[in-house]
């Protein structure tokens, strides 16, 4: 009787152990994806830039947060003709999970440094950018969205002729999401001569300030004001890229003027953050003001477009 009891107990124990092993057995494949978005960065020639990419991975293995397990890190286009080498600073597990195709994915934030320094102007614009890395001998090429990277000689106006006295987003509900449709930009002429603004360029490959509709704003406006109402005409979100778009805005001496700069998107991604440059003329002298990437707004996102799920055999 005792023998039967021992056999029964052993059978039950082994069955339970097997079940636990089956349930807890790590997935044989590593799956990862991300929410594609517009990445845009501006930094001075000799400054490092920090980049954060959030990745969803179907694994809680501790080696994911071990930066020693990674090598060959870069941001690249599909053909690897344009590539920016990255240095991995840290990987942080965000403690949150999301279900994709009935499978749990865990959120990790990757923090990189771009060590690239230059002595001259440099830009890298990739419509369809990939985060490339080698993780435990797996070559991962993850599509992350668009990537705009600019190196500028200085920030602000090195001659101190003009300064930015106001930055305010105009955000409207369009295409079922909140979209940056314009910027209210205050420019102060700090000199005793009139200054002519010749060009204002957004430093993100997806969009452009639409100079034909620039207008002076004389009263305070709300950030959620309807752009069509402000412009006094129908606004269209999309437009084609115009590389020769110039403006001629004259700011009298020692005066501050607030302009509404409507935005047109020609790229695939909308943005909430970007730098810009202003080219202006004072007398016969030409100069440029460079502005670092500025975060205009954040919101609770309704529609997140999760990219393709990449699968690798472990």
């Amino acid at each position, binding site marked *: 009787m005792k023998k039967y009891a021992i056999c029964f107990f052993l059978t039950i124990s082994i069955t339970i152990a097997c079940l636990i092993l089956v349930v807890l057995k790590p997935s044989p494949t590593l799956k990862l994806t991300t929410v594609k978005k517009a990445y845009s960065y501006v930094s001075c020639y000799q400054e490092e830039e920090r980049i954060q990419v959030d990745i969803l991975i179907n694994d809680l293995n501790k080696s994911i947060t071990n930066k020693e397990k990674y090598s060959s890190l870069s941001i690249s286009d599909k053909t690897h003709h344009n590539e920016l080498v990255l240095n991995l600073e840290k990987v942080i597990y*965000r403690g949150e999970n999301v279900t994709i195709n009935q499978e749990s994915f865990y959120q990790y934030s990757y923090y990189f440094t771009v060590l690239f320094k230059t002595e001259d102007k440099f830009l890298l614009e990739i419509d369809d950018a990939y985060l490339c890395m080698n993780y435990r001998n797996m070559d991962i090429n993850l599509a992350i969205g668009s990537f705009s990277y600019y190196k500028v000689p200085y920030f602000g106006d090195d001659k101190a002729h003009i300064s930015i006295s106001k930055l305010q987003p105009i955000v409207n509900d369009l295409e079922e999401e909140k979209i940056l449709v314009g910027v209210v930009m205050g420019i102060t002429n700090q000199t005793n001569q009139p200054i002519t603004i010749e060009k204002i360029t957004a430093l993100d490959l997806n969009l452009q300030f639409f100079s034909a509709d620039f207008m002076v704003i004389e009263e305070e406006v709300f950030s*959620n004001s309807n752009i069509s109402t402000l412009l006094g005409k129908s606004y269209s979100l999309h437009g084609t890229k115009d590389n020769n778009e110039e403006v001629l805005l004259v700011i009298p001496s020692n005066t501050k003027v607030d302009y509404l700069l409507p935005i047109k998107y020609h790229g695939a991604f909308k943005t909430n953050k970007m730098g810009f440059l202003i080219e202006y003329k004072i007398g016969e002298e030409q100069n440029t003001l460079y502005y670092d990437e500025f*975060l205009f707004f954040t919101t609770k*996102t309704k529609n997140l477009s999760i990219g393709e799920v990449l699968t690798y055999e472990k």
Partner: protein
Amino acid sequence: MKKMAIIILLFCIFIGANVKGYSTTGHPEFIEIDFVDEGKLLINFSKEELEYGYQKISKPKFWGWSTYFFNYNCDAHYIGEVLFSKSNKTATPYFVDYVLETSDISKTSTTVSGAISAKIAGAIKKVTGNISGGINGEKEQESKISKTETTKVKIEIPPYSRVALKVTGEAKVTNAVSKYYILGMTFKKGTWETIEAITEYYELYEEKYR
């Protein structure tokens, strides 16, 4: 003398712990709240108006919470805190590195009074039933991706100027009175209010000293 000093110190600590900064909205994070349609913050309610709410839930319940909502998820605009402010009283411009950490997890401010705790108020708000009737205090389980982002920006402070960064946005306001009944008797009661920031707009502005 030593005893006296200790008593004064303890008194100061005790008083200090209970001092709250004055806020026109009752929520220090929000300087101003404007409802899109009709709505009112708890701070502006009269005693009679609150009493009206309590009367609406005076019918005893065998067990659990009974709540009367004055406003439920009402749309509002807000002016929030000044996140950054720097002055330059010299003739030379300078730059500061400002680091802004943001998250798309909405910021919620809850105020409570009476015997209700902020935790309970949060649970009551996430109702899954009809609002004025039976309330099920189960917390919603959400599976969502949060976006936490750090942005470093160089901000120029021109000569004789002050540059500030403020946040404004859109919010949802809910306020109510609640009673907790045990065996038909009121066990706890109080008022509570939550303001949930949905959108944050960052506005940079400069003021000249001369």
